[in-house]
């Protein structure tokens, strides 16, 4: 197998540094002993991490975000995967229009979506419910699930599916045992982006969240109403730390490349 040349590795290094720089800075600030945003120079302090403990609503909001993100991206996949397969494989009348409709949540500013959903849910008596928030998130993250699944499904070798059919696999089994594993990299990437998008959304969620269903970004946004202080950075650093821990555990017990590259032979 061909490996990356020195030029590629230099490019890669610069790329990764540029991607990480702002984040590293934020994480560093989390360790400041000062009461305001500053890079720790002489000493590091955990005071801003300790302070998280005195805001139980942050912890609660984290769980809400986690649950909402996981649930909405999962539900979105349930709808998006079949739709993506249809769009990738068939040319039928209205295909382009449907594809455009499915992508439209990407194209509307989230403020507008937030208010549109708030009006709509209020009108149908679903205002302020978690279901409403969930449905809105499903719609908003749907395009990610769709587009990435689509990227994996277009141009897939169909004879493999035919082989499965000839061996007696039909419908659901065919999908679960053959089609899904083949498009798995796309599905997982789609899920990851959908999850993160839901986890990160602020502008729409501000309108739909009610007390008890406030997400972490909403909580942080409200927290910095009067003042920005390093708590924002320590919360961000904690989220990163939690994510990394989860991923390392996943890698240990399952293998990340299996998740990300699908189960097919890793080494080629």
């Amino acid at each position: 197998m061909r490996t990356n040349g020195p030029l590629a590795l230099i490019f890669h290094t610069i790329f990764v540094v540029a991607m990480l720089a702002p984040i590293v800075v934020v994480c560093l600030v989390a360790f400041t002993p000062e009461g305001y945003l500053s890079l720790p120079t002489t000493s590091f302090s955990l005071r801003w991490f300790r302070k998280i403990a005195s805001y139980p609503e942050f912890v609660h909001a984290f769980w809400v975000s986690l649950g909402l993100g996981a649930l909405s991206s999962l539900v979105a996949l349930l709808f998006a995967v079949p739709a993506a397969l249809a769009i990738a494989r068939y040319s039928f009348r209205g295909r382009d229009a449907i594809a455009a409709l499915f992508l439209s949540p990407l194209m509307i500013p989230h403020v507008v979506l937030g208010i549109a959903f708030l009006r709509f849910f209020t009108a149908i008596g679903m205002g302020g419910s978690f279901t409403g928030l969930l449905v809105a998130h499903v719609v908003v993250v749907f395009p990610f699930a769709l587009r990435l699944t689509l990227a994996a499904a277009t141009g897939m070798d169909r004879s493999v599916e035919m082989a499965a059919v000839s061996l007696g696999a039909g419908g659901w089994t065919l999908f679960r045992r053959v089609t899904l594993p083949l498009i798995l990299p796309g599905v997982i990437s789609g899920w990851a982006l959908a999850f993160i998008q839901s986890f990160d959304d602020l502008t729409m969620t501000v309108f739909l969240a009610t007390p008890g269903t406030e997400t972490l970004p909403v909580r942080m946004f409200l927290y910095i109403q009067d003042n920005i202080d390093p708590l924002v950075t320590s919360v961000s650093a904690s989220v990163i730390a939690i994510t990394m821990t989860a991923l390392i555990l996943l890698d240990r017990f399952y293998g990340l490349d299996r998740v990300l590259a699908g189960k097919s032979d890793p080494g080629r």
Partner: protein
Amino acid sequence: QQKTLYVAGYGGSFEKTIRDEVIPGFEQSNGVKVEYVAGNSTDTLAKLQAQKGNQQIDVAIVDDGPMYQAIQLGFCGKIEGLPADLYEAARFKDDRAVGIGLVATGLMYNTKVFAEKGWAPPTSWNDLKDPKYQKQIVIPPINNTYGLHTLLMLARMNGGSEANVDTGFKIIKTDINSNVLAYEPSPGKMTELFQSGQAVLAVWGTGRVQSFANTGFPVDFVYPKEGAATLLTSACPITKPNASPLASAFIKMLLEPKTQLVLLKDYGYGPVLKSVVVPPELGKMAPIGERAAKLYTPDWVIINDKREEWTKRWNREVER
């Protein structure tokens, strides 16, 4: 069945204060559950408009500017039985809302940077024109009350008035605009710009500056010699079918001297009741006593009439 009262108000430390100091007592004495819906003034107002005719919120706490809009749009009900010793400035027409805290709009500056550079602390609105602050000033935009005050003050100092703010626009456009780093309404962003050293001078309110200074950051507030304008944090009960009488009760609780002192301590709000006695250590910045008396209170009747037009003009002339 226990009833729920929805109170919409600012997030952050304000929310914390209300949750800790006001809500428990209120719930106990009224046998009701209070849900606090956090959001800044504009978010709350947008929610009111979106849920028009089907309001969830019972009490709204917003800045005075948005409050006038809310009243105009008919969202606010009448408050019965307001205390008598309310400052006149805290009253709204027909008692459709009431001020719960008094804030002065003036200048905030970074004391450490000023000291390092050997600059004298600002004293006047005219200091905003000083070219040495090139790209280091932050002013909230016009749809924020602080921005509106800046425009009004500059107009008044130069012979204008609420009815005629042309001079204000002209000065901002020609003399101040080049010094302005950003027209930033968000308090979080404002503090960030100071903390990262990008801004050193700003137009802001006493409440905000007080809590910023409380974090240990070297900033101070200046009442400009031409005068500072009054800004009110205000509350109103929301009109809705079978509105709860507890809405007014909740607002009145906010006006109790005990609550007023808490707001002063935690949030730098000047009390709106003449009768509240302020302990000296709490009143360093807040508009109290004599400072409160000297404040300039804009004429909102005229402003409201013109505001839409000014906003358009500001967007097209200043922020471009």
